[in-house]
């Protein structure tokens, strides 16, 4: 077993550490795992807001060799009956669900803790091209196209306490008892039962005064309407947290609602606030020579524009 720092931004004691481990890679396949882990690190660092937090993040990979390639894929879930002897015992059909790819979470956390005791998030990539994954304390995903999106979504839950923003349970057109969210406020930062612009928990990020921004006209179904607002509009969109009505999400779409979408502004803020303590302060910039103003009003445009620029700076307070 070998631990390699894929992205090195400082000592693990003071950084936010992501640990990526592989399962179902034989010894001879570990170079391929190294490439796959690098791809995960690259994708994470290209994903907002992680791209602006890079200096606070380390990514480690742990090379773990398995006896066999791949993962179990039992016939009980419609799979081909593959039995693979792997270190973390990766298997589809977790809970009797075909694409639910799971590993032995206890072993995974134990190995991660031995390799990088300061881990903040653990992922396991399983060496199979069959689509699948699950969340929980360890994000598990396969090598299938877009399966790494599962990892980013699950990381939202595990590392940042984000809730699901989708309004379905078993599926749109399938659910019969998910019409109305219970009148209990979820503690999670990105879903709410509150549609009051003055009290809604993400009121500091609202970009529209139309709250709720959308309503679901038929609470027995998923809301079929397309977005009536510009991309990036933060409001209160009805349909969230597994219910068609009575719960709201901050933007029309988000990675916590649909894989492949960017994190919404509220989720991004939560991620920034969580990782901010790990980001080293920027060294002070050297003083620049100040040009003399051409007239006594020469600096006025700069003064007028300064608050606008200051308003665009990321803010880390709760």
């Amino acid at each position, binding site marked *: 077993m070998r631990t390699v720092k894929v992205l090195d931004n400082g000592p693990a*004691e*003071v*950084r*936010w550490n992501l640990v990526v481990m592989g399962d179902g890679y034989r010894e001879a396949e570990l170079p391929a795992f190294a490439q796959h882990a690098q791809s995960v690190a690259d994708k994470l660092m290209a994903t907002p807001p992680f791209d602006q937090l890079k200096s606070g993040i380390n990514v480690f990979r742990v090379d773990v060799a398995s006896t066999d390639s791949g993962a179990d894929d039992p016939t009980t879930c419609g799979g081909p009956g593959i039995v693979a002897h792997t270190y973390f015992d990766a298997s589809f059909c*977790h*809970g*009797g*669900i075909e*694409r*639910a790819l799971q590993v032995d*979470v*206890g072993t995974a*956390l134990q190995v991660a*803790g031995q390799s990088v005791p*300061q881990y*903040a998030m653990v992922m396991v990539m399983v060496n199979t091209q069959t*689509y*699948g*994954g*699950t*969340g*929980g*304390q360890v994000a598990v995903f396969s090598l*299938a196209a*877009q*399966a790494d999106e*599962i990892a980013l*979504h*699950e990381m939202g*839950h*595990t590392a940042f*306490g*984000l*809730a*699901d923003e*989708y309004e*379905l*349970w*078993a*599926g749109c057109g399938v659910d019969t008892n998910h019409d109305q*969210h*219970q009148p*209990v*406020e*979820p*503690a*999670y*930062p990105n879903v709410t039962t509150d549609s009051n612009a003055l009290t809604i928990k993400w009121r500091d990020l609202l970009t529209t005064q139309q709250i709720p921004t959308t309503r679901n006209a038929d609470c027995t179904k998923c809301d079929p309407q397309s977005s009536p607002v510009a991309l990036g509009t933060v409001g209160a969109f009805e349909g969230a947290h*597994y219910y068609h009505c009575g719960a709201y999400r901050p933007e029309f779409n988000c990675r916590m*609602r*649909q*894989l*492949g979408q960017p994190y919404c502004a509220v989720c991004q803020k939560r991620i920034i*606030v*969580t*990782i*901010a*303590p*790990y980001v080293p302060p920027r060294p002070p910039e050297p003083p620049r020579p100040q040009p003399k103003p051409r007239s006594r009003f020469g600096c006025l445009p700069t003064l007028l524009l300064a608050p606008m620029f200051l308003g665009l700076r990321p803010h880390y307070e*709760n």
Partner: protein
Amino acid sequence: MVLPPTDPLEGLEGQAGFWYELRDAAGSPLYRRIVRNPIQVHIEVHEADTPSPTRRMVDAPQGVFTALVPDLPEAEVIALCSSPFTKAYGPVQPIATFAVRG
């Protein structure tokens, strides 16, 4: 080791979800993190042909997890606080406490 900042220590009364917290001898929270329930009563299922995941109930819920808390001299217990372990959604209640020092 650096920890994530605490979530609000007040104002979550009656809300639902899951969090763990560090408490002093009087039971007052010193540090709190809101997380997804690590003892999964239902799991998220990802299918290749549906953009949004779906949910399925788990027959025998179990979970292994870690809870990072600051090493504060006044800390006495770690408390796990959760909504009921059912599909129904209800306010958070303490479900277990653990002494932080042997």
